[in-house]
């Protein structure tokens, strides 16, 4: 199995289409915490945990004809975003889902595909803060880093998501 197979598996499990680079990154991160074992390294970036390995895997997936990246625009300000689509003939390999297994992974991926992307960003960041950076008071640190994004009930939604997927924060 190659790294691009993981990208193809995620996009396939999302229904053949996954919207947004942030969503792809956070999906992979949370899946890894649940046992995907992608082998990707993550570091902290603007939108929370980010993997350059996954970024390179995406380029491989495109170069080897597994996944295509197209673009659309947000209505309000014309901001461009990515749409990842499984190429005709490409499919998900079972081993790409790691210990998590195809069914459990697919259920999680579909959940992540249908949630507000900022909630997903917050959920991945909460997990990162306590698990990787060792913040016991992750709420304060999250608010300090994410500012207004935690407002409007999004913090609560992110915590609910983590509880639902078996990654409850301490």
């Amino acid at each position, binding site marked *: 199995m*190659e790294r691009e197979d993981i990208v193809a598996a995620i996009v396939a499990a999302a229904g053949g289409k996954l919207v947004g680079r942030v*969503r792809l990154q956070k999906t992979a991160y949370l899946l890894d915490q649940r046992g995907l074992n992608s082998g990707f390294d993550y570091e902290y970036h*603007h*939108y929370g945990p980010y993997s350059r390995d996954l970024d*390179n895997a995406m380029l491989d997936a495109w170069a080897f004809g597994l996944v295509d990246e197209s673009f659309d*625009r*947000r209505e*309000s300000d014309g901001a461009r975003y990515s749409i990842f689509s499984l190429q005709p003939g490409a499919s998900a390999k079972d081993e790409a889902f790691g210990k998590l297994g195809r069914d459990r992974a697919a259920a999680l991926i579909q959940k992540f595909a249908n949630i507000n992307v*900022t909630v997903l960003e917050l959920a991945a960041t909460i997990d990162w803060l306590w698990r990787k950076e060792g913040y016991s008071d992750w709420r304060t640190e999250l608010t300090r880093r994410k500012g207004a994004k935690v407002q409007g009930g999004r913090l609560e939604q992110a915590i609910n998501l983590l509880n639902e997927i078996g990654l409850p924060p301490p």
Partner: protein
Amino acid sequence: MPPKAQPLQTEAAPAERTQRVRDPVHGLIVFRVGDPLAQLAWRLIATPEFQRLRRIKQLGVSEFVFPGATHSRFAHSLGVFHVARTLVEIIKRELGQKFDPTRAEVAVIAALLHDLGHGPFSHAFEAVQKTRGMAKKHETWSAEIIRNTQGKIRPLLDAYRPNRTFTDEVAHLIEAEDPVDIYHAVVSSSFDADRLDYLRRDRLMTGTGAGAIDFDWLMEQLRVAEVEIEPAEANSGDAPQRVPTFCFDPKALPAAEQFLLARYTLHEQVYLHKTTRCVEQMIAKLLKRAADLIQQGRRADTGLDANHPLVRFFQKDGATLANFLALDDVVVGGAIEQMEAAPDTDLSGLARRLRDRELYKTLDLGWFGHDVGRQRKEARRIDRQFADELKNDSVIKDEGAAIGIYTQIGGDDDKTHKKLHILDAGQPREITELSVVVRELAEKKRQFTRYYFETESDRNRARSPNQRETG
């Protein structure tokens, strides 16, 4: 050269007078008597923490490729301060009565101090810390230096306002990830003071003819408008968060295109130059080796004295603020010289090669042609062919260099406040929607994969896979 700095006097403030610095990019930068903010800036510049920036090159090891690019973060920071003052005047013009002079002061001082947290050979050093699991962004170091109760910066900032909140406001503005108001845009936005200085300074000092920007026209056409800060998708759901940031009048569209192209070109030709990246990888390898030896209690094998700043920093629990501040390019350059006599031959060999510019041999995948599919297949083949060498670092693979029209090193999505917006019928629209030129560059991120080989023969084998068999 700046005029002679006044010695720092914490007990009694030095007498104020107008100070002037000649700058190759901006001309005269004046710190006027009677202007409290300018006088504060001058006192901050005189602190050891700020003076340290004279010993850190703005472009790290780019001088291996562009010999003129030896300018310092000190000069850059003065330039950023100068531009920040201009940007604040534009905000004042745009906001009128709503202008907040206290926030503007925070922004100008944050701009001056934003680079305090850069380490020696920034990118190489950060890469080493990352591999040691101790990554800390330079913005975080900057904020810590500003808040440091043992340092010389904090007393000056604390004394600037009676309520003593200035220090924290400045530090917070530097470390804030998302914009909170238009003053944040002075420090971090598509058109921030940092970018407006380094694009012009780096172009001048490297001598590259590419990457000119129409600075005066852009400044004249700068406006303030609100944009959504959430990652772009079809819609942002309920009540998307919006913050004010810089955008441009439609008359600036061609100049804005040039501005983004200038940035793209400088990344392509200067910052991500394959030889520069090669030297960074070699220095990172050397520092990592030294750090490993020190951690293993084999300090003597590094050739460094027990009290050397690098030894102090790399020892267990040594990554303290005080130890960090003792590091700069000069200290590390001296360490490399000492390491030439290191008993550890990996270290001494690398140190000698760096001194004599006997660099590793680079293979950019572009050598196999422009077809990305072919490049990626060749990369797979090289990965297999040199699996052992990649494991023991005698061959280094670098996949970290990538550019898009907004970002230089990848990232999830481009930060919304780092995207460039043009007013279209009075509303800010992302420039990729309005500009065909920018759209083309925005659609595909360019990624550079390079391999660095200790020997030329290994590189030749990588170029021609059959060479091993044919002898």
